C-alpha cells in the first residue's frame, strides 16, 4: 500500500560550522504514516545529527550548512547553503515532528513544577484554551501511564518515567512524525517492554515513528523499514528480515541481540605483559578486601549538609541502610561482576572501593591496608574507578592530554608517553589522539575515560555500568581491555544490569539485593 510520505529528506551534505568534512552526505530517507522505521548505525555515524535535522532541532543555517531538501506536509524546503535559504520555524516544525533526545532530561523546560504543567508547556506557548489543555494532558497521561504522577515534580521521576514524560511532551501537539534517539538505552527489560507497547499504539494511531539506535533492540524487529547509517551516509536499507538475512550489510559497530564472541581484538601475551599492573610482584594475597562492610545514610546528619532552597531538590529517596555485612575478597587476575536491580545500591557499593564513601560498619582493605581516612586521590593510584558518566571525568583539550594527565609527574615524560599511546591503542582511539574529548561520540567518550584509568595500570579496576552507551566495536574493546588487565594481574570489579554480559566475562557473578552480596 502506497501512502503519502509524512516526512522526507534528501541531504546532499550537512556540515557543522567550522568543520572541514560533512557529518552527513548522500542521505535520502522518507517516512510513512503509521509505520515504524529504525535508523541503525554505530556511535558517531551521524544518527543523532540526522534525527535533530529531521525534527528541526538543528535548523539549517543556524546549526550548520545543509545542501539538499526537507519535505514535511507536502511543503518542500530547498537549501543551497546560502544566506537566502529558507529559515525553519522550529515551533511550527515541532508541532508536526516530535523529537525525544537521548537524555530525556534535556527536553524538560526546567521551569514547570509538575508533570502536568510540563506536558502542557507546548500548548501554553501556542495559546491554547485552558479546558482543552486539561483534556489533552489527561489524554496523553493516560496513553503514557503518567496519570498517577501528574502532580509530581519532574525531578523526582525515575529514568523510565522521565523517558515517558519526554515522549509525552513531544506527542502532546499530535505530531505526524515522532523521532526518538536511543530510547531503549539504559532502560531495564520492564521499561523497554512498556516503551515497545507505547510505540505500537502510536504507530496504530497513524504516527510515523522513527527510532535511532546503535543496537538491534527487540522492539525494532517489528519495524517496517531499517535504514543503516555508517560514516554519515546510508549504506543499506530494507526490511528487518532482509537485513538480518544478510548480516554483512550491518556494520560491526551495531550491537546485535545476544552476546557476540567474535573477538577481533585479540588479547596478546605481549599486551598482557605490557599492561602489568604496577607493583604487582609482591602481591599474593587478596588485593582488595571488604570485611563486614555496612553502609547507611544517616536520617539527617546533625549540623551536616544544609537543605538548599528551591523546588527542584535532587531526588534522594535513599533507604536508611544501603549495604549490610558485606564480605568480599578479590584476588589478582580475578574478574567479578556484581548485578542487581536498579536502586539496589550497586553504585554505593562501588564508591566504597576507593573511599569515596566510608563504611559505617566494617572496613575496606586495599593490599591489606585499611583505607579509612586516606584521601581518595591517593587510593585511586591503586584502585581505578570508572564512573557511568564519562563527561564528569574529562577536562582536557585533546584525548591524548586527557590520558596523559598526571602521568608525567608519577612516571616521567618518557614512560608517560608510552603509557598514553598504549592506553589509547587498547581502546581503539589511537586515531583520535588529537580530538577534543567532548566532540567524541558517546561510545568514544566512555572508551577514553576507560583509557585514562588503564594508563595508570591500577591493581583494582572498578567499572560502573561499562556497557551503557558503547556500540558494538566499543564493546569489543572493553572486553579486550578487561581481559588483558586481568591477565596482567589486575582484579576487575564490574557493576552492571546486563546479566548475560556479566556472565560472558566474569569468573564470579555476585548479586546485590537488599543490601547483601550473594553468589549467584
Amino acid at each position: 500500500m502506497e501512502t503519502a510520505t509524512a516526512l522526507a529528506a534528501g541531504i546532499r551534505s550537512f556540515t557543522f560550522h567550522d568543520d572541514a568534512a560533512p557529518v552527513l552526505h548522500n542521505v535520502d530517507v522518507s517516512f510513512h504514516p503509521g509505520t515504524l522505521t529504525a535508523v541503525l548505525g554505530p556511535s558517531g555515524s551521524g544518527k543523532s545529527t540526522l534525527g535533530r535535522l529531521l525534527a528541526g532541532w538543528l535548523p539549517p543555517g543556524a546549526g550548520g550548512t545543509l545542501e539538499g531538501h526537507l519535505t514535511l506536509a507536502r511543503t518542500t524546503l530547498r537549501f543551497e547553503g546560502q544566506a537566502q535559504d529558507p529559515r525553519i520555524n522550529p515551533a511550527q516544525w515541532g508541532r508536526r515532528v516530535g523529537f525525544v533526545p537521548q537524555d530525556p532530561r534535556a527536553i524538560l523546560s526546567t521551569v514547570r513544577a509538575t508533570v502536568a504543567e510540563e506536558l502542557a508547556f507546548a500548548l501554553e506557548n501556542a495559546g491554547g484554551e485552558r479546558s482543552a489543555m486539561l483534556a489533552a494532558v489527561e489524554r496523553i497521561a493516560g496513553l503514557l501511564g503518567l496519570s498517577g504522577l501528574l502532580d509530581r515534580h519532574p525531578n523526582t521521576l525515575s529514568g523510565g518515567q522521565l523517558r515517558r514524560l519526554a515522549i509525552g511532551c513531544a506527542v502532546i501537539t499530535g505530531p505526524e512524525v515522532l523521532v526518538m534517539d536511543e530510547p531503549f538505552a539504559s532502560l531495564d527489560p520492564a521499561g523497554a517492554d512498556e516503551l515497545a507497547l507505547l510505540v505500537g499504539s502510536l504507530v496504530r494511531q497513524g504516527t510515523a515513528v522513527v527510532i535511532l539506535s546503535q543496537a538491534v533492540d527487540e522492539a525494532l524487529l517489528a519495524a517496517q523499514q531499517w535504514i543503516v547509517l555508517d560514516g554519515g551516509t546510508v549504506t543499506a536499507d530494507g526490511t528487518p528480515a532482509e537485513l538480518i538475512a544478510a548480516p554483512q550489510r550491518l556494520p560491526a559497530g551495531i550491537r546485535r541481540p545476544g552476546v557476540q564472541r567474535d573477538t577481533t581484538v585479540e588479547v596478546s601475551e605481549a599486551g598482557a605483559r605490557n599492561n602489568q599492573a604496577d607493583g604487582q610482584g609482591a602481591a599474593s594475597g587478596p588485593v582488595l578486601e571488604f570485611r563486614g562492610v555496612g553502609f547507611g545514610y544517616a536520617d539527617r546528619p546533625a549540623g551536616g549538609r544544609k537543605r538548599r532552597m528551591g523546588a527542584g531538590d535532587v531526588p534522594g529517596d535513599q533507604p536508611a541502610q544501603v549495604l549490610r555485612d558485606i564480605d568480599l575478597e578479590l584476588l589478582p587476575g580475578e574478574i567479578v561482576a556484581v548485578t542487581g536491580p536498579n536502586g539496589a545500591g550497586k553504585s554505593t557499593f562501588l564508591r566504597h572501593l576507593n573511599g569515596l564513601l566510608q563504611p559505617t560498619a566494617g572496613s575496606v582493605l586495599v593490599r591489606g591496608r585499611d583505607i579509612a581516612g586516606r584521601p581518595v586521590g591517593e587510593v585511586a593510584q591503586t584502585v581505578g574507578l570508572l564512573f557511568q558518566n564519562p563527561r564528569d571525568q574529562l577536562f582536557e583539550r585533546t584525548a591524548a592530554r586527557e590520558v596523559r594527565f598526571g602521568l608525567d609527574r608519577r612516571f616521567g615524560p618518557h614512560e608517560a608517553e608510552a603509557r598514553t599511546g598504549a592506553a589509547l591503542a587498547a581502546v581503539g582511539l589511537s586515531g583520535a589522539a588529537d580530538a577534543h574529548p567532548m566532540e567524541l561520540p558517546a561510545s568514544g567518550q566512555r572508551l577514553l575515560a576507560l583509557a585514562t584509568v588503564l594508563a595508570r595500570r591500577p591493581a583494582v579496576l572498578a567499572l560502573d555500568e561499562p556497557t551503557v552507551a558503547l556500540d558494538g566495536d566499543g564493546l569489543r574493546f572493553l572486553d579486550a581491555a578487561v581481559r588483558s588487565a586481568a591477565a596482567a594481574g589486575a582484579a576487575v570489579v564490574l557493576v552492571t544490569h546486563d546479566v548475560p554480559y556479566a556472565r560472558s566475562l566474569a569468573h564470579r557473578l555476585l548479586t546485590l539485593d537488599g543490601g547483601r552480596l550473594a553468589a549467584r
Partner: protein
Amino acid sequence: MRLHPLTTLAAAGSTAVITTAAAYLPLSLAVITAAVGLSARGGTSRRLLPAAAAILVPLALSLLVLHGLFFPEGDTVLAQWGPARVTAEGLSFALNRAAQLCAAVLALLVFSFSVSVPDLVAALSAKGVHGRFAFVLASTLSLLPAITFRLERIRQAQEARGLVIRRGLLHRAAAFRLQAVPLVSALVEDAATRAAALEARGFGGTGPRTSYRDVPERPWEPPFRMLLLLAAAAAVAVRLLLAGD
C-alpha cells in the same frame, strides 16, 4: 486562600521603597518588627532569619566600624584613639542606615521566602519580557540545586582519577580548572539541547500565551496593587521635593 504573588510582591516592594524614602528610624524599626512577625506567622522564620542574618550582620558591623570610628563630618566626639574618632553623628548615621537597610531587606525576604515560585512564574508568564524573565527566574531556581549536586559528582569522579586537592593558591586554581571545565562544558551543551527543545515547543513564539496553572486572585487585588505602587511613587516624589528645597 493566599494572596496573589504579584500582590505580595507589590506590598514588599513598596514597603522597601517607602522605608528608604522616609528614612525615619521608628518606621524602620516598625517595619523590621512587622516583617519578623509576619514570617513567624507564616512559618518561614526558621529559614528566613539565618539567611537574613548572614546578609545583615556583616553589613551592619561594617557600617558600625566605618562610621562609628571614622566620620570626619562629625562634631560631637565621644572618644578618640589616634586617628579613630567616635562621634555621635557617625553612630547615629550608622544606626539609621543599618535599620533602614534591615527593614528593606527583611520586607523583600519575607516575600521571597513565602511566595510559591510556580505561582509567581505562572503570574508573570503572560508574554514578552515577563515570560522570559519568569523563565530566567524559575530556571535559575531549579538549576541551582541540580548544579550543586553535579559539581559534587564531578569532584568525586576526579578524585577517583587521582586528584588530590592540596593547599595553596596554585593548587586550588588548578583544581578549580579541573572541576569547572567539565561543569561548564556540560552546562553549555545541555543549554544548547534545551534551547532546541524549547524552540520546538514554541517558547520562541511571540503570540499570546496561556497558563495551565490557575493562580486565583480576589477582585480587589489589582486596584490594591496599583495603590501600593502609587504610594511608593508618592513617597519617592515627596522625598525628592523636600531634598530639592
